[in-house]
């Protein structure tokens, strides 16, 4: 109604007009609400379902926490009872003791894995609840695109049929039409891929921002930061030590090969070179001060040992003279007494000297000097213990790590934590940890040696272990293959993003695995390590399956190798695998891989 007519309206007409207007607006509003009703109902229903699923998962998680606690207590009780009865020390029961401990740890591990699975599922449900409206909006926004794609596909089929059925068309025309539709589809696929990636990036920006704050919660987080500080301070010493260790290993392999070929001269030369490197290693390991102290004791031992050899020779000669009647009993007595006294004195001095040297080596404060190489200090021990507590591992595992097995102790913690974070049960290490008792002379490569024992064990138990270990290895290896394939197939943009994320990742695992397994062994820096992520798939056969437990083959690629080579190789390749797993987890956490 125009302005002129409105001003000419009577009050009654005005009232009627306004009423009609209101009625019409109310009707529109009601219709709109009625239209929305089923939508709201559907939303409420979905949310209700998600919430009830959430409650169920929370209930399962609580139950699982309870079960883990019970299982852990039971494992400890089992261990304590067996130890109380001396089964762990008895030669007759030692193996069974280990097997029972292993079984208890296995049970606990299975429960923890199930717990992790529920936790992950709950996280997804929470994510969906929290982002319900956003997800719906994204789906709505994409709906038109999907409908359009369906139309395009349908029309493409029709277009081909139209050309095919068109009077006078030939095979070339049909091929040309097919080429046009295929080309269109490919271009559309690319558009969709780019759009999805762009949307993913927008979503990931927010998600990764939040994750940085909440990643690695719990008691380990703070210790990790402290641990990283220590590692950074020690890095130059570690690098130097690892370099020497690597050189020593190479020389050792060459020496073994020379010995095997009967080249004694070369073997002797290499042995000399190994001794020089060992001394350098010792110097780093002990620290300058302790090394000098120990050296003084070693020099003193040589001197005392020389004197003792001379005295013993004199005593021997005196005895011979007496036996041949060259001196009287009195003469003999007078001369032998001071020699015996000197011999006893030298024995005493040598024992004292050796005890002092041992004290330097075994001094608990040893290694805590600033300049010395510390593999485990108070904080690291705390870290390891916290990790183990969280994992619920049995006491025997703790013993191994706390016995200061060089870098192995630190590796133990990484591996155990890695298994925990990623829900893995990497067989080479975990199986060995659970079944094997280590002593301090076995050194840093003991877990691999443990696997060798399983390979070489011909008993029925050995066959059984081999089957279990082989199956586990196969499953981890397949998982590894799948993950490397996905990583290798990432679009360039995602690869760049992942490189950035891995470099920025502050977790202990990434830094430890990248520096310790790549820097020290291959001389690769972090970029080299990251490059390995994307090339691992093509190299996977030869690089990462060095130990085929099930088939009892010890090999790298297609070559069968000796135990020393394998020990070094398997040790590092297993860590490379773990690095890939860690990178994959980072990619997954940041939405680069579904």
């Amino acid at each position, binding site marked *: 109604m125009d302005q002129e007519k409105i001003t000419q309206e009577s009050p009654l007409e005005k009232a009627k007009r306004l009423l009609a207007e209101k009625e019409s607006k109310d009707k529109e509003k009601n219709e709109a609400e009625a239209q929305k009703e089923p939508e709201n109902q559907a939303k409420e229903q979905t949310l209700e379902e998600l919430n009830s699923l959430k409650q169920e998962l929370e209930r399962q998680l609580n139950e699982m926490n309870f079960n883990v606690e019970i299982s852990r207590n039971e494992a400890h009780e089992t261990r304590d009872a067996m130890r109380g009865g001396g089964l762990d020390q008895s030669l007759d029961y030692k193996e069974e003791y280990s097997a029972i401990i292993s079984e208890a740890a296995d049970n606990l591990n299975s429960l923890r894995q199930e717990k992790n699975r529920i936790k992950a599922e709950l996280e997804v449900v929470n994510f969906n609840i*929290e*982002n319900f409206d956003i997800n719906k*909006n994204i789906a709505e926004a994409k709906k038109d*695109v999907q409908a*359009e794609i369906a*139309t*395009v596909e349908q029309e493409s089929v029709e277009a081909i049929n139209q050309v095919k059925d068109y009077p006078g068309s030939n095979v070339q*025309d049909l091929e040309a*039409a097919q080429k046009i539709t295929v080309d*269109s589809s490919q271009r559309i696929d690319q558009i969709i891929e780019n759009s999805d990636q762009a949307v993913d990036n927008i979503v990931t920006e927010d998600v990764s921002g939040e994750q940085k704050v909440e990643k690695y919660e719990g008691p380990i987080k703070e210790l990790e930061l402290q641990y990283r500080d220590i590692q950074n301070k020690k890095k130059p010493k570690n690098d130097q030590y690892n370099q020497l260790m690597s050189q020593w290993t190479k020389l050792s392999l060459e020496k073994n090969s020379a010995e095997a070929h009967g080249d004694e001269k070369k073997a002797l030369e290499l042995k000399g070179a190994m001794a020089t490197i060992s001394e350098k290693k010792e110097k780093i390991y002990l620290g300058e001060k302790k090394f000098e102290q120990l050296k003084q004791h070693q020099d003193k031992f040589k001197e005392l040992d020389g004197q003792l050899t001379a005295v013993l020779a004199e005593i021997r000669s005196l005895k011979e003279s007496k036996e041949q009647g060259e001196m009287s009993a009195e003469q003999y007595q007078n001369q032998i007494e001071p020699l015996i006294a000197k011999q006893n004195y030298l024995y005493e001095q040598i024992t004292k000297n050796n005890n002092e040297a041992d004290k330097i080596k075994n001094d608990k404060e040893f290694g805590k000097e600033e300049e010395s190489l510390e593999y485990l200090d108070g904080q690291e021990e705390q870290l390891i213990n916290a990790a183990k507590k969280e994992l619920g591992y049995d006491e025997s595992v703790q013993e191994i790590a706390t016995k200061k097995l060089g870098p192995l102790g630190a590796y133990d913690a990484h591996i155990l934590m890695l298994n925990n974070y990623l829900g893995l049960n990497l067989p080479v290490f975990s199986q060995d940890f659970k079944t094997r008792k280590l002593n301090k002379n076995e050194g840093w490569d003991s877990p691999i040696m443990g696997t060798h024992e399983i390979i070489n064990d011909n008993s029925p138990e050995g066959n059984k272990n081999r089957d279990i270990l082989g199956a586990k290895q196969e499953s981890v290896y397949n998982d590894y293959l799948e993950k490397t394939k996905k990583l290798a197939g990432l679009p360039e943009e995602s690869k760049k993003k992942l490189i950035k994320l891995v470099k920025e990742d502050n977790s202990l695992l990434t830094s430890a695995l990248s520096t310790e397994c790549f820097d020290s062994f291959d001389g690769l820096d972090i970029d080299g390590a990251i490059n390995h992520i994307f090339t691992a798939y093509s190299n996977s056969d030869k690089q990462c399956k060095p130990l085929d437990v099930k088939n009892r083959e010890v090999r790298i690629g297609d070559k069968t190798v000796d135990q020393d080579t394998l020990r070094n190789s398997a040790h590092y390749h297993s860590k490379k695998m773990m690095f890939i797993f860690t990178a994959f987890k980072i990619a997954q956490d940041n939405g680069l891989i579904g």
Partner: protein
Amino acid sequence: MSPKKISPDKIDQIKTIYSQALVDIRKIKKERDEKIKEILKSIDTNQITNILKDIRGTK
């Protein structure tokens, strides 16, 4: 365990991305239709040429 939340102000950006995708897809569709039409036209042209040839041939 707190879920990760996507910020609601991102939704406009996401809508823009998919709208642009829609525009691009329609453009490709249009190009495809034109190319198909070209094929049909060329079939017609060939047909006519052949018919004309036939007619000339019979004369």
